[in-house]
């Protein structure tokens, strides 16, 4: 994998509890997504879904580098970002079932997950639409002289949109505290990036706008975290934006019942061998003070929590007709 040369501290140098926390977050997202996929396919969950199995390390690594009062913007593929930023399994599951107890009272749904109290604006489901928005959030912090940072998540597909150019350029010229996080999973929906960009090294774009870009192994949570920490620190210090290109891979369909027939078998196998959970588990076990039993216990606990959330969400209150016309205006 061709990444920007940097040094990531080995897992042995990190605090044990911090690492277990990261592992729990990553597994939480995987288990959540797998459960949601099952509920969707069995027909009990309404709507459509865009899932992030295989990309968990990007959300977790970046959000772990943020403070609680920092913000993120997300996309239509936002379940992982939400869980990584600290939204609860219950408020997400309730939202997916369209219940009034969901994070957006059932009015947002899968593509618009957010919680202003947790520093996550509702997901922007128009490709690249969150990029100028994130720059505007960062402008607000700069005007108020607040040392807050926005991490703006988007996919490789967003780079072709005009909104990318306009938002990134303004963030650059005003040195706004925003970290642009491109989750490059090689596909915009079903189209491979090699078909839509002559230079598919997305981090190169940063230089054109006059700031720093970096390509990172997005399936190595510690590498993502280290890169995000550097980027966030620079942005917070007033040095302007940073573009992080996180190389990753979507294990599941773009949406709904997409069977991913456009992903070549050898490509899938190569990426599956670089699965972020398996790799992180290997790093943790190599330390010597974390056992497979510890990891199994985490997974079992999360499965229970998710199961309880599903049961509760399926009984959660559905909106009434009076809710239809509420919340249009403040």
């Amino acid at each position, binding site marked *: 994998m061709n990444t920007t040369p940097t040094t990531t501290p080995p897992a042995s140098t990190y605090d044990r509890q911090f690492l277990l926390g990261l592992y729990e977050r990553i597994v939480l997202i995987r288990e959540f997504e797998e459960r949601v996929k099952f509920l969707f396919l069995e027909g009990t969950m309404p709507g459509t879904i865009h899932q992030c199995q295989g990309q968990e390390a990007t959300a977790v690594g970046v959000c772990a580098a943020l403070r609680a009062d920092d*913000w993120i913007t997300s996309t239509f593929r936002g379940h992982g970002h939400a869980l990584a930023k600290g939204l609860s399994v219950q408020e997400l599951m309730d939202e997916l079932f369209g219940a009034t107890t*969901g*994070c*957006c*009272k*059932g*009015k*947002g*749904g899968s593509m*618009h997950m*957010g*919680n*202003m109290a947790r520093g996550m*604006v*509702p997901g*922007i489901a*128009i490709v690249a*639409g969150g*990029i*100028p*928005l*994130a*720059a*505007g*959030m*960062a*402008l*607000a*912090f700069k*005007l*108020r002289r607040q040392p807050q940072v926005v991490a703006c998540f988007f996919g490789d597909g967003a780079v072709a949109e*005009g*909104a990318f*150019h*306009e*938002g990134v*350029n*303004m963030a650059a*010229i005003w040195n706004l505290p925003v970290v642009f996080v491109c989750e490059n999973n090689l596909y915009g929906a079903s189209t491979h990036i090699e078909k839509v960009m002559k230079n598919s090294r997305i981090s190169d774009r940063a230089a054109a706008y006059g700031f720093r870009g970096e390509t990172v192994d997005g399936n190595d949570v510690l590498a993502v975290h280290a890169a995000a920490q550097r980027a966030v620190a620079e942005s917070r210090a007033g040095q302007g934006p940073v573009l992080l290109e996180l190389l990753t891979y979507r294990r599941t369909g773009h949406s709904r019942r997409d069977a991913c027939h456009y992903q070549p078998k050898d490509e899938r196998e190569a990426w599956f061998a670089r699965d972020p959970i398996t790799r992180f588990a290997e790093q943790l076990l190599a330390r010597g003070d974390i056992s497979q039993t510890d990891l199994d216990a985490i997974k079992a606990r999360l499965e229970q929590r998710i199961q309880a959330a599903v049961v509760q969400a399926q009984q959660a209150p559905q909106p009434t007709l009076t809710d239809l016309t*509420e*919340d*249009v*205006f*403040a």
Partner: protein
Amino acid sequence: MKRQGIAEALRDGIAEEMTRDERVFCIGEDIGVPGGWGGAFTVTLGLSERFPGRIIDTPIAELGLTGIAVGAAMMGMRPIADVQYGDFLFLASDQLINNAAKMRYMSGGTVKVPMVMRAPIGATGRGSQHAQSMERYFTGVPGLKVVAVSTAYDAKGILKAAVRDDNPVMIFEHKLLYGSKGARAEPGAVDATSEIPEDDYVVPLDRAAVRREGRHITILGWLLMAHFAAAAAEILAGEGIEAEVIDVRSLSPIDYETIGASIRKTGRVVIVEEGPKTGGVSAEIAAGIMEHCGDSLMAPVVRVASADVPVPFSPVLENAYRPDVPRIVEAARRLAQT
């Protein structure tokens, strides 16, 4: 009291709101360049010196600057964004329609987007792409408030109300109404000056204004057409037809209380709109009238609007395109006789 045009009244209104509330800032193209124009129509002239760092000049990037305004508003700022020509709103419309208008609803009422978007419109000798009447594209978007200002008094009061409102508000202004005197006055400009009080005031965002009372016929218009309707009423008065002229002013929501009260009195209505007839705001108003006070109509609703063509350049064609006073008088005269 002082006599001001719309550009000056807006400038004072913006300055007063920026003084009152430090969350207010302006963002747009060429709005604060030293030695520059103060925006395409001088509205922000001199403000960058008075409010350093708060009159933000952007690249030529309407989508981007609008998204920045939305994001800043979501974080508690109160941006006043503007585009140089309303036509450029098509570039900005993803951020306005998909983000600004919907964010509160799809967040379950937890997000506020207190932003203002100002846009000059109107056919003014600039051909097809700096001329369109844009309000029709936004009046049907739930979550947006849409207003149109035709006098300096309203411009200042509505601007202030919009800044203080917790929702996205679009203010449409007309290029022929900013000022009829001075270097930036447009050929064909109409006097829209008002006596402006010294004290702070606001004009509500959801009320039409009765500009002239009458009992035979109601004429509805906004922006330049409100002035043309008033001029038509003057001529009609000479013929013994007493027209009530209403400046619709609030295009979303539409004030059917004021409009309905007039139609229940006159039973006849002409709606005047600059902009193609098909799909216009006048179509919405006509349907709304049927629902709210259709029983009171003594004759079908009449519309005077532009032809269903792009705005032409040639002055001959542009004048034929845009409704004028004689066409309004003719339509009203015929309706009054039915």
